[in-house]
């Protein structure tokens, strides 16, 4: 089977090539640049028709884009993007999408993505839902006596789920308001883990990164005993280069 070309990221062609290609890609294949005018694609050959989403392959893809992002502006490309040869990378990606890619590169230049996830500590969310809803309290009293009809239990469960949703929306808004002065864009990510209050992707000017961290620390302090906050970054802008583009 002839090699396919796996694309990791699109970068400006003026980037430090030696540093970009100093690592290896999926399956330890050497990284190369396909350059075309102002843009370049960071690629490696792979010897398969499709990519398997193995731990090693996913980690390599993330690692390569993270390094590219440290070196300069970088548009991460979706995992599993394979072209038949370098010519089609040049033609269908770099040439066909040039203006689109150019504007994306400028949009993410000197900016980082951060992921923020706030989780409720044990029983916090349920306790607040009960405290805020007379109806839930009434149901609780009614059902506490012993075995209750399943219909009533389902009704209580529905009330609790609705209460949790409302609580999450409020907390999401509060978190977003607190950090919005420090970000260029923010997006709420779907995350239905039971204890997640809010999961956000943030695009932040590099010069404001420390301000963001301070704001998140402040938020963590204010919410101590209620929320635990995970902040991951600076990352490549995975959530801000989502625009889908068909092959020309």
């Amino acid at each position, binding site marked *: 089977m002839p090699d396919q070309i796996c694309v990791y990221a699109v970068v400006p062609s003026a980037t430090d090539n030696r540093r970009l290609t100093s690592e290896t890609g999926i399956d330890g294949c050497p990284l190369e640049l396909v350059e075309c005018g102002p843009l370049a694609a960071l690629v490696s050959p792979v010897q398969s028709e*499709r990519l*398997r989403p193995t731990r090693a392959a996913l980690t390599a893809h993330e690692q390569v884009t993270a390094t590219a992002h440290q070196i300069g502006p970088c548009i991460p490309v979706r995992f599993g993007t394979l072209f038949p040869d370098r010519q089609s990378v040049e033609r269908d990606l770099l040439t066909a999408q040039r203006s689109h890619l150019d504007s994306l590169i400028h949009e993410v230049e000197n900016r980082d993505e951060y992921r923020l996830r706030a989780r409720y500590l044990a029983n916090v969310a349920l*306790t607040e839902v*009960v405290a805020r809803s007379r109806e839930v309290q009434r149901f609780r009293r009614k059902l506490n006596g012993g075995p209750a009809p399943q219909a009533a239990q389902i009704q209580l*469960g529905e009330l609790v789920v609705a209460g949790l949703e409302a609580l999450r929306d409020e907390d999401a808004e509060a978190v977003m308001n607190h950090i919005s002065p420090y970000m260029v864009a923010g997006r709420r990510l779907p995350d239905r883990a039971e204890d997640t209050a809010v999961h956000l992707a943030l695009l932040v000017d590099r010069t404001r990164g420390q301000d963001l961290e301070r704001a998140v620390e402040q938020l963590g302090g204010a919410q101590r005993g209620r929320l635990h906050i995970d902040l*991951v970054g600076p990352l490549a802008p995975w959530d801000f280069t989502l625009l889908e583009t068909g092959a020309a």
Partner: protein
Amino acid sequence: MPPASGSITRAPRPSSLADVLDLILDKGLVIDAYVRVAALGIEVLTIDARVVIASVDTYLHYAEAVNRLDLTQTETQGIQGLAHDVIEAGARGKTQGAIEGVKSSLGRHRRNQD
């Protein structure tokens, strides 16, 4: 793992496979005709890993949880810390579960392909 008293964890990069999946799957630039991943509906893997499906079972689960809840809330800081440890342990358990889930889904898929 965060200190029991701390309320924020900082990491420069995703630290587990679940976090890497979370960061990169279904993200980034898409050139439609050229995305070829050898997993049917790979998004299902992440959904498998995380979702609490809204169903009768979920409602019953919440009804039970809220009924069990002790609202006297006389917890001391120490007990809260302990509770936090338990959540962390639980979260780790979930992540491991997620990875196993991914592995088993992939395994299933491989078998289906064979």
